[in-house]
């Protein structure tokens, strides 16, 4: 198969420039993950300049609208996103230096218990990297991580001298209920605001920040009612993040056990986990303008098809005036195939 353009043209209208204040939901299942789609959104937002290459050119300066992206990932670390974006030709580390991109690490220390003496006392604070892990000479390329003092807000957030900047902000969940969520929310909003205002000198305007939250449903699943976090609290949490960003993309899991066990048609009583997840996921879909659903092929796995992508209008579609005129996309169901080289081909059934 010939190598694919980074953005398949069938996909382009769906991933480029989500409208202001909109929420887009990407739903995935176990065998059809949404990471490749998230990367396409990153690409569409960050790789705005058509001509210049990433490696040697300047990015996004020529483009009329400057987009910035904050990626919050709860299931995958910085290494994954960096290397996968590189396969697309997107140098995230460089973009961090250029202050067009920020990564918030919700994986590394989200639940790690406070065992180091240097542990900050308040929730959500930045944690000095791995005090328990001695950084010795390693066989692999060294990943230097500059310790950042928690009080510094975020001026040291970006560390241009480091060759490969690690995840700059690490989230830590502590406490219960809204307090815990608030801590995380503040951290993320701080990153967003920082990116907003840190425009390079040429133009003074505040640029738009696209917020991508990767699998926040994990937070809900791993806390649950015993920590006083439910679907409502998570929904409000997302709402708070939405207010800070210009557009928001959220990925969630929509596996059948997580969604349908709690429905009225289920045969067995649902667990709180299932009920909470379903309420959160369906509630988000009600608030979304666009819902992009990934799932496996119904007919079983195939060698040249990775899955099915269905784009539907969410519950909030049409709330904004003029959405009909502006949103020039229609609902669609296509097949996609993620190739070994990372390219994605998108095609209709039977094509």
């Amino acid at each position: 198969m010939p190598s694919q353009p980074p953005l398949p043209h069938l996909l382009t209208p769906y991933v480029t420039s989500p409208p202001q204040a909109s929420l887009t939901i990407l739903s995935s299942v176990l065998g059809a993950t949404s990471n490749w789609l998230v990367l396409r959104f990153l690409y569409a937002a960050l790789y705005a300049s058509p001509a210049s290459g990433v490696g040697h050119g300047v990015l996004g300066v020529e483009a009329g609208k400057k987009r910035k992206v904050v990626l919050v990932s709860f299931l995958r670390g910085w290494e994954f996103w960096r290397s996968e974006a590189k396969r697309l030709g997107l140098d995230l580390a460089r973009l961090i230096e250029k202050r067009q991109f920020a990564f918030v690490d919700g994986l590394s220390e989200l639940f790690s218990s406070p065992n180091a003496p240097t542990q900050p006392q308040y929730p959500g604070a930045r944690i000095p990297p791995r005090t328990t892990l001695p950084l010795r000479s390693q066989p692999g390329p060294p990943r230097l991580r500059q310790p950042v003092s928690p009080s510094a807000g975020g001026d040291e957030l970006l560390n241009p001298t480091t060759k490969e900047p690690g995840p700059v902000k690490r989230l830590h969940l502590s406490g219960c209920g809204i307090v815990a969520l608030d801590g995380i929310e503040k951290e993320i909003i701080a990153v967003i605001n920082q990116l907003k205002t840190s425009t390079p000198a040429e133009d003074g305007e505040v640029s738009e920040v696209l917020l991508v939250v990767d699998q926040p449903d994990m937070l809900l699943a791993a806390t649950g009612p015993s920590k006083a976090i439910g679907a409502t609290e998570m929904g409000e949490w997302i709402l708070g993040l939405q207010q800070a960003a210009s557009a928001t993309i959220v990925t969630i899991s929509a596996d059948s056990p997580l969604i349908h066990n709690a429905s009225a048609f289920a045969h067995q009583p649902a667990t709180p986990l299932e009920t909470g997840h379903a309420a959160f996921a369906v509630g988000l879909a009600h608030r979304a303008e666009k819902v992009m659903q990934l799932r496996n092929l119904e007919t079983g796995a195939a060698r040249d098809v990775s899955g099915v992508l269905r784009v539907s209008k969410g519950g909030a579609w049409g709330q904004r005036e003029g959405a009909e005129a502006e949103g020039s996309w229609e609902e669609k169901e296509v097949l996609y195939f993620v190739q070994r080289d990372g390219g994605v081909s998108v095609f209709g059934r039977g094509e």
Partner: protein
Amino acid sequence: MSFRKRNIGLSTGSDRTPTSDSPAQPQQATPSPPSTPGVRPSPDDGRPTTSTGSPSLDNLLAGHGGLPIGKTLLLEENGTTDFAGALLRYYAAEGVVQDQKVHVIGMPEQWGRSLPGLIGPAEAADEKVDRRKNDRMKIAWRYERLGEFGAGVAGARATSGDQSPSSADNNLDKQPAFCHAFDLTKRLTHPSISNISYIPITRSSEPLLVSIQRKLQALVASSPPSTVHRIVIPSFLNPTLYPPEVSQPEHVLPFLHSLRALMSLPTSRITAMITIPLSLFPRSSGLMRWMEILSDGVVELCPFPHSSDALSTSGAATSHEEPPQGMLKTHRLPVLHERGGGSDQNIGQDWAFTLSRRKFEIKPFSLPPAEGDKEAQDNARSDKMPKKEDLEF
């Protein structure tokens, strides 16, 4: 495949020392840690991988020829059999033989003493098979591909079939063995077997899984950074081992998440394998699904309910092969599905597994093409004298 059985008379002494590090290694393209035994770059994208201790499981893992470093494999098993436990023992034994640091959670030291005994490098056994296969090919050429699957990853991935065995042949003597063959009926005796660390399940003031996580973290942190770790969690959440509150989502999911975090650290080199009984935690439950989402690879074993005698010929592709003992389903493969899925040659296959004394073998599951016809033929031939199989049916 029964013909493999004849080829296993290899002495264990020659390959016990896997340190002969040849400067000319044609296959090592990437500069990822070359000196570590048991770690080799993936033929797919060069990331370091390590063997699961059973070659056919290695080959199932989306073209990487092993379990990529930093990835978790979740083995689910239906019923009360313990095939997954056998896979786990292979995995642990491979780690011992490769001088990796093995951490066993929730099991006493007896578990480590029951690891299967070492026979030799798996590649050596497979090479012999390959050579024999060339003879056999004239008879059963249509099964050539099936045989190739069981062979080393070089053979499985080669597009032109015959080229790789010869080159692999040359490498074999110089390169340390990546995967070994073990005998389940023997006991592993290896100097580094005492290095296995056991993290017991003990009651303490803090939640159990948090303390396990902390101990793991400390163990990983206290070892030299070049160490490759294996985390072995047998029969996770089994109520005979674990206290009941552990299966609450707010205990188990943060544990798996932190495990994932620990493993994804760029400084650590860890793989993990977890087995879990599906009879207690069915796949249709939301909690189980979250555990699967938090794992990089998910493999489900569905043993056939009958005794293997009843199925004597039904699942084997040829009469030479042993009958499969169950079906194997791959729900998620490391790296591949994280990228989006698809594009693996093994996808869409039905797999069957056979556990024999010496190996856990996974091969494409296929009902014999003409089972009904064969029976009819048999009946026609030996109508007057029913055979033993017929009676046993």
